[in-house]
């Protein structure tokens, strides 16, 4: 790899270009570039010199904002002075620009979570200089916390609690106030009237927040509230112990089954970190303790009382954060475990808080290490050659970022954001550091690839999706040679399957010939030899005389823009002459003939397909009059698009949209006996998920419509109406909603039933590998739709998970139920 560009130019990873001069020196440290507030000594002296009074108030506000945002970006000796000077400026201008200062501080705390120490110090200084200002800022932040609690924005809650934890160091709040906040989170955790703890999904979330806060609160509480610190530590310790006991054999959310059991749930891991910190006197050494130089100023500051926090009462279970592990994908020194956790916690928070802008997120992610204390973490960017950064002997920042990114991608039971977020974030990181991240990501992916056999099937699928889009963004460059041995593996083995499916995805994003050119000769067997076209059944060679006659007649009719009725008439006319076959068989033949021809008519593009289906909808619906008939239509579709999974999936989806087939048809199709031995293929599960998701979308839409219909009618001008609710419309929507909810439940139950039947019988799978895939997909399904599973619990227990079902299968169900309780 060529690193020459990096050696000559500006040092990378040191923030935006504007901060360094043409020689790579830090601009801020050069006198003529100093900002007024950076002048040595305390003072607003710089104020009049730097900011002319006649400046527009808006310009001042802009500048104030930017000063707040940039202060303490780097761990430089000037930080103390900068903070002090900024607090003087803010204190002075606070009344005039209160709104700007407030909202900027608020957003800095929320959006730049790794700078928490800087902003608590700034708020502390404002408070020390003017307790009225301090009071307002602290009250505002408390309000923000309350709002985020109500909304169930746990990432923000966690970041805000860390802010309050550090705020204790500045005396702006008393240790007891923080303790009361933590207790509010723990109150639902402690058994009513007892001393035990209650393990639940909601309480996992609360305990996780408390533990994450303790990481930063320990230092402040150990002196002044040691008893409380001990008490809270004991409660969370007890909770984790009980949780570990109750989830001892629960592997339903395990990403990599070769990892130490402790790694599955983040809470036990976090407890280890907390205990390690407690034993080292709660020392946080990764970042600068910005408040330390000001301890004298803070000693006389006013502490503010805060109203008690209340936990949300009516949040849906799905709204609580499920603490999940950081998967270990890159080796790191064991003695650095605490620092690694704290740093990755910052990285995770940043990934979550800046999700709205992946480009800026990538930019800021690369700045986090700049605030670290010396020696804590190294960067590849700072090395003369990338090989000098050895993740085994020191924490390497870029690898920490990569590990967090992939942990998010592989998060179970469900990811926090769409998979595409992590793909596009990785793309931005690589665009920003084109010499560094390609190697970092490929090392990480290769590490996971070596462990694929132990990886959860859903995660394997996600990684494949990630890789396909990632590669397609960089000219499809990837070191395929490294994996060429896999082409010799047996079909269906995890590595081979991963590779084949990834390549199929890449073909979908580009085209076959392109991918062919990219692959080394040794890997050519992994991709289809021919362009994935349709597989029309009625080609001339393979037909008897009378079949050809029908096919030709129907083909001509469709080509000449015949109508559905005309096509039906032709079919009728021909097949009535087939007196040697019975009625049902004739109907089945006619059905197949029509569907094949409609699909052929629409085989050019999705648009063509859509208009072909629309045109012959009456005929298709007429033919799909029974469950068996619907299944036949679906199977003909599969056969027609045998070589093109994407067309197969989309066509099935459209047929469902037009109600030619039902969700239950699709479930039966996916679990068809002809698929035994092929459970490793990805597209069946893509189709199954699309179907359930589509049903869920319809339910959400009907719920919205119902809500709208229940509002009193407004007039056309949107102002005055008759104030009446159209009860008839409401009734209709309610009826459709009830039907859809029933359908949703039916489809979930039916799919689980089929999984259990296949996994429970000899004939359901073709081999151990085949069974492992199906088992993985079973876990994926119950995990993805765990809330629907919970709603259908009684039915499932009565008709599916009966005592004669094997323990192994029932365990999956019990495990999934356990994570939603």
């Amino acid at each position, binding site marked *: 790899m060529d690193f020459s560009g990096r050696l000559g130019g500006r040092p990378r990873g040191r923030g935006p270009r504007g901060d360094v001069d043409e020689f790579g020196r830090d601009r801020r440290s050069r006198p003529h570039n100093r900002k007024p507030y950076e002048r040595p000594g305390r003072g607003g002296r710089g104020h009049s010199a730097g900011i002319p009074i006649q400046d527009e108030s808006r310009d001042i506000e802009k500048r104030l904002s930017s000063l707040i*945002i940039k202060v303490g970006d780097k761990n430089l000796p000037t930080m103390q002075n900068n903070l002090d000077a900024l607090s003087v400026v803010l204190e002075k201008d606070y009344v005039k620009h209160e*709104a700007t200062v407030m*909202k*900027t501080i608020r*957003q*800095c705390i929320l*959006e*730049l979570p790794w700078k928490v120490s800087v902003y608590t110090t700034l708020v502390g200084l404002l408070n020390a200089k003017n307790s009225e200002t301090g009071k307002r800022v602290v009250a505002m932040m408390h309000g923000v916390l309350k709002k985020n609690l109500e909304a169930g924005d746990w990432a923000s809650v966690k970041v805000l609690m860390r802010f309050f934890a550090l705020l204790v160091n500045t005396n702006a709040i008393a240790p007891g106030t923080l303790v009361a906040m933590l207790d509010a989170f723990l109150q639902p955790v402690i058994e009513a009237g007892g001393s035990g703890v209650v393990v639940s999904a909601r309480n996992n979330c609360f305990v996780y927040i408390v533990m994450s806060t303790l990481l930063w609160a320990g230092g402040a509480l150990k002196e002044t509230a040691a008893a409380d610190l001990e008490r809270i530590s004991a409660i969370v310790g007890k909770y984790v112990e009980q949780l570990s006991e109750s989830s001892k054999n629960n592997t339903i959310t395990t990403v990599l089954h070769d990892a130490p059991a402790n790694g599955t749930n983040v809470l036990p891991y976090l407890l280890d970190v907390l205990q390690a910190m407690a034993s080292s006197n709660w020392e946080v050494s990764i970042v600068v303790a910005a408040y330390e130089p000001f301890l004298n100023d803070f000693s006389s500051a006013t502490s503010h009382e805060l109203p008690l926090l209340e936990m949300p009462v009516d949040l849906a279970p799905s709204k609580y954060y499920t603490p999940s592990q950081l998967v270990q994908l890159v080796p790191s020194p064991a003695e650095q475990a605490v620092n690694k956790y704290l740093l990755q916690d910052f990285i995770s928070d940043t990934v979550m808080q*800046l*999700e*709205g*802008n*992946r*480009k*800026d*997120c990538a930019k*800021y992610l690369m700045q986090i290490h700049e605030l670290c204390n010396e020696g804590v973490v190294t960067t590849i960017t700072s090395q003369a050659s990338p090989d000098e950064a050895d993740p085994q002997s020191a924490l390497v920042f870029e690898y920490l970022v990569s590990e967090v990114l992939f942990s998010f991608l592989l998060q179970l039971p469900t990811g926090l954001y*769409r*998979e*595409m*977020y992590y*793909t*596009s974030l990785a*793309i931005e990181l690589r665009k920003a550091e084109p010499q560094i991240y390609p190697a970092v990501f490929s090392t990480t992916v290769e590490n996971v690839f070596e462990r694929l056999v132990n990886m959860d099937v859903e995660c394997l699928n996600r990684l494949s*999706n990630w890789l396909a*889009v990632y590669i*397609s*963004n960089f*000219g499809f460059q990837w070191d395929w040679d490294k994996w060429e041995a896999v082409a010799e593996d047996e079909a269906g083995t995890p590595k081979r399957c991963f590779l084949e499916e990834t390549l199929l*995805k890449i073909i*979908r*994003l*580009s*085209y076959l010939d392109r991918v062919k050119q990219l692959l080394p000769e040794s890997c050519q067997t992994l991709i289809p030899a021919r362009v994935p076209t349709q597989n029309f059944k009625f080609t001339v060679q393979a037909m008897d005389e009378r079949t050809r006659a029908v096919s030709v007649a129907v083909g001509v009719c469709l080509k000449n823009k015949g109508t559905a009725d005309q096509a039906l008439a032709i079919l009728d006319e021909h097949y009535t002459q087939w007196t040697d076959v019975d009625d049902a068989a004739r109907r089945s033949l006619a059905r197949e003939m029509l569907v094949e021809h409609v699909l052929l008519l629409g085989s050019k*593009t*999705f*648009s063509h397909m*859509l208009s072909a289906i629309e045109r012959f909808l009456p005929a298709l619906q007429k033919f799909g009059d029974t469950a068996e008939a619907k299944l036949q239509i679906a199977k003909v579709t599969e056969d027609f698009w045998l070589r093109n999974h*994407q*067309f197969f999936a*989309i066509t099935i989806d459209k047929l469902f949209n037009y109600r030619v087939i039902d969700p239950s048809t699709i479930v039966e199709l996916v679990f068809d006996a002809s698929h035994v031995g092929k459970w490793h293929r990805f597209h069946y599960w893509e189709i199954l998920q*699309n179907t359930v*998701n*589509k049903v869920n*979308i319809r339910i*959400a*839409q009907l719920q919205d419509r119902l809500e709208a219909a229940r509002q009193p009618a407004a007039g056309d001008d949107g102002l005055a109406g008759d104030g009446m609710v159209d009860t008839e419309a409401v009734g209709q929507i309610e009826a459709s909603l009830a039907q859809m909810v029933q359908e949703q439940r039916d489809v979930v139950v039916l799919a689980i039933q089929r999984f259990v039947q296949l996994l429970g019988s000899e004939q359901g799978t073709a081999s151990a590998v085949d069974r492992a895939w199906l088992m993985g997909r079973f876990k994926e399904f119950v995990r993805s739709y765990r809330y629907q599973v919970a709603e259908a619990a009684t039915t499932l227990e009565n008709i599916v998970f009966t005592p004669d079902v094997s323990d192994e299968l029932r365990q999956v169900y019990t495990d999934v139920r356990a994570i939603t309780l």
Partner: protein
Amino acid sequence: MPETETFTIVPRLDRPSTYKDHQYQGTQSQWQTDLQKSSTLYVGNLSFYTTEEQLYEIFSKAGEVKRIIMGLDRHQKTPCGFCFVEYYTHESALECMKYVNGTKLDDRVIRTDLDPGFKEGRQFGRGKSGGQVRDEYRQEYDEGRGGWGHIRAKQEGDASSQQDDDMADTPQD
């Protein structure tokens, strides 16, 4: 919504840009209101060779796609480098703005913008030659979009036929 609610240091990517359909009939504020509930995106800078199927593949990464309407050359009825993607929900359109806008498809950076919704007729290019206006005036050669821009292509064509004439004038041995 009060300004304090929406202020962020890092600008969100799922906010409307300066994009506007020049033939939109309503007012600016109506345009904004339309975008606030829109589940449709205008997608630009596509290669003429990019297929509907490729678009489906990448755009379904942000949510379930309801339909894709390919932008066509008004005269030739062939793809001319843009399309409309309609999702089932507004949220999917926003996620697309956040995660898909600015990534590459067919080696080209795709650009997406929230759009009030497709109306019949909007699928056709509005340039003089039938394609998009931008391809009339484009000065750079772009293989994925039919080579030179139309005006430039004409100049190039004139130049080369001039050259051919010159060659013809050259006495042959």
